[in-house]
């Protein structure tokens, strides 16, 4: 292939994703913590539901929520703060002088993050299913795959947008991450159906793609109780998620351009120690 803009950017995405996947899996201890720690929260909720004699699918909801937590944490603590760390190590200036779109760098990080986290999420889910003996009845695997992929694109699109904003706000952004961890667990319904929060809260929480993604996945994994616990129909949730993909990707492009322009003008943002 000749060195066209597209080829260059595809290679950049692949290379950045590769480094993230390989890096993430070269530390076995991380894998252990990333899989086992979410299971502890899952176990707590699962035992409460079992003790309360809640419908069996609730334990499944929790396992699914626990698995999807991995993506939220990856977006919040890794994806969003990535450019900040790249600046500190001096990588950011090397990314910026490369003849590629900055979106490719972030897309590579996102693809790598998605892949590495999927391994962890699936592990959490498999162990959860085995330990708690949950029976899933998958009815529409194609739709499930579609919802899952669109959710991740929207979620990592949001992470890409955060990456530039976190760079602009610097260390203060870490407080935002802390603030967004637990409250999002609550309003996004990680451990219970979001419908329980009422329409307007659930609607507001839908800005975070994982809220609707998780709700749709639960409906697809447990079709018999979908109508009872689902916030909206899977099709509608998918459409909103597609819209969120577009919105977040556009916003991330704008925030990246803004960050770069600000960095070039002030000399503070993009250069190490400045």
């Amino acid at each position, binding site marked *: 292939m000749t*060195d066209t803009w597209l080829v260059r950017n595809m290679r950049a995405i692949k290379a950045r994703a590769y480094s993230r996947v*390989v890096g993430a899996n070269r530390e076995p201890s991380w894998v252990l913590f990333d899989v086992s720690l979410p299971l502890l929260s899952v176990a707590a909720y699962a035992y409460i539901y079992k003790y309360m004699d809640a419908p069996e699918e609730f334990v499944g909801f929790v396992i699914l929520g626990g698995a999807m937590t991995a993506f939220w944490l990856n977006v919040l603590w890794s994806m969003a703060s990535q450019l900040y760390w790249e600046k500190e190590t001096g990588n950011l*200036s090397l990314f910026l002088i490369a003849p590629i779109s900055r979106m490719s760098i972030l897309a590579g990080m996102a693809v790598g993050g998605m892949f590495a986290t999927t391994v962890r999420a699936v592990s959490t889910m498999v162990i959860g299913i085995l330990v708690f003996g949950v029976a899933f009845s998958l009815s529409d695997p194609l739709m499930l795959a579609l919802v899952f992929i669109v959710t991740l694109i929207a979620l990592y699109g949001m992470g890409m947008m955060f990456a530039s904003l976190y760079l602009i706000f610097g260390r203060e952004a870490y407080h935002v991450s802390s603030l967004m961890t637990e409250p999002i667990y609550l309003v996004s319904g990680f451990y219970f159906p979001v419908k329980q929060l009422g329409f307007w809260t659930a609607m507001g929480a839908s800005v975070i793609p994982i809220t609707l993604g998780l709700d749709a996945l639960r409906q697809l994994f447990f079709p018999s109780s979908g109508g009872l616990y689902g916030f909206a129909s899977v099709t509608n949730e998918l459409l909103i998620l597609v819209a969120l993909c577009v919105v977040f990707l556009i916003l991330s492009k704008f925030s990246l351009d803004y960050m770069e322009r600000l960095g070039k003008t002030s000399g503070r943002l993009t250069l190490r120690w400045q």
Partner: protein
Amino acid sequence: MDYAVETRQLTRVFNPKSKKEGKSVKALDSVDLKIERGELFGLLGPNGAGKTTLLKILSTLLLPTTGKAFVSGFDVEKEFVEIRKRINMVSGGEISGYGLLTVRENLWMFSQFYGIKSSVAHERIDKMLDQFGLVDKKNEKVRALSTGQRQKMNVIRGFVTNPEIIFLDEPTLGLDVNASRIIRDFIVDWVREDKGKRTVLLTTHYMAEADQLCDKIAIIDDGRILACDSPENLKKLVKMNSTLKLDVNLLNDISGFGSLQGVENFAAHDDPERNVTTLRFILKDESAVSEIMSLILSQGSKIMTVQKTEPTLEDVFVKMVGKGFD
């Protein structure tokens, strides 16, 4: 003429975020520079002279406040995309890359940002690792490398994309003699290999490095270019003068030396640990030597060594600025 780098009245001012942070700093002040293609060009100046700021502008990381800068004929403000295809940059003390990746993986990753086919990239990487004596480290994680090995890897990262113009910001900073020599030799070979097509802009505050490597040198201080010529021609500026270097016991007062008749300029560097002050004089008239000695002795200081030296680039700098690099 089509220059590799050209700046016209280039000025860069850094403004503080707030009044508390102090005043604005003029890092570059009306810099006019022309670097021809195929040149190994050195930018020589003390810390804070503006060298890195100039490189950041030329590598499209910073915008000029006023003035213009062109790289390979392209405007840094408007045509940065074209510039980025043609350049690369390496800084001394760089800690770029990912510690968990191997040396080869890291180099491959950065090469991909320039669209280089993987097979070509690996071929170049292996060849350069061999040239730098890093072959046995190619599958080591980057975090296991020593400072010198890491800097060699950084240099390979910059050259592996085969840029038209490479910006090297103090590439041998803090390295031992052997690692520095390998990097310097590589730079010279690289630029000569394809004479006329490859250009290096190197910043350094090591005089000997600039003298040894560069076809042409610009001396920069306080954001201004003070002189720009070949090392030989620059040294001719002090050829008519005598240059004298003395090591004496730590001096308390050096204010009298500047006004001595026959002294054109001088610089002093204190080394309190050794209790030594090193003095460099540019003399118009050698008869000033006895007066210098008298002034030193009158302060109760002891003269340890006196050397009449061949003119160096440091002497050129002392003559122009009235201070040394330290």
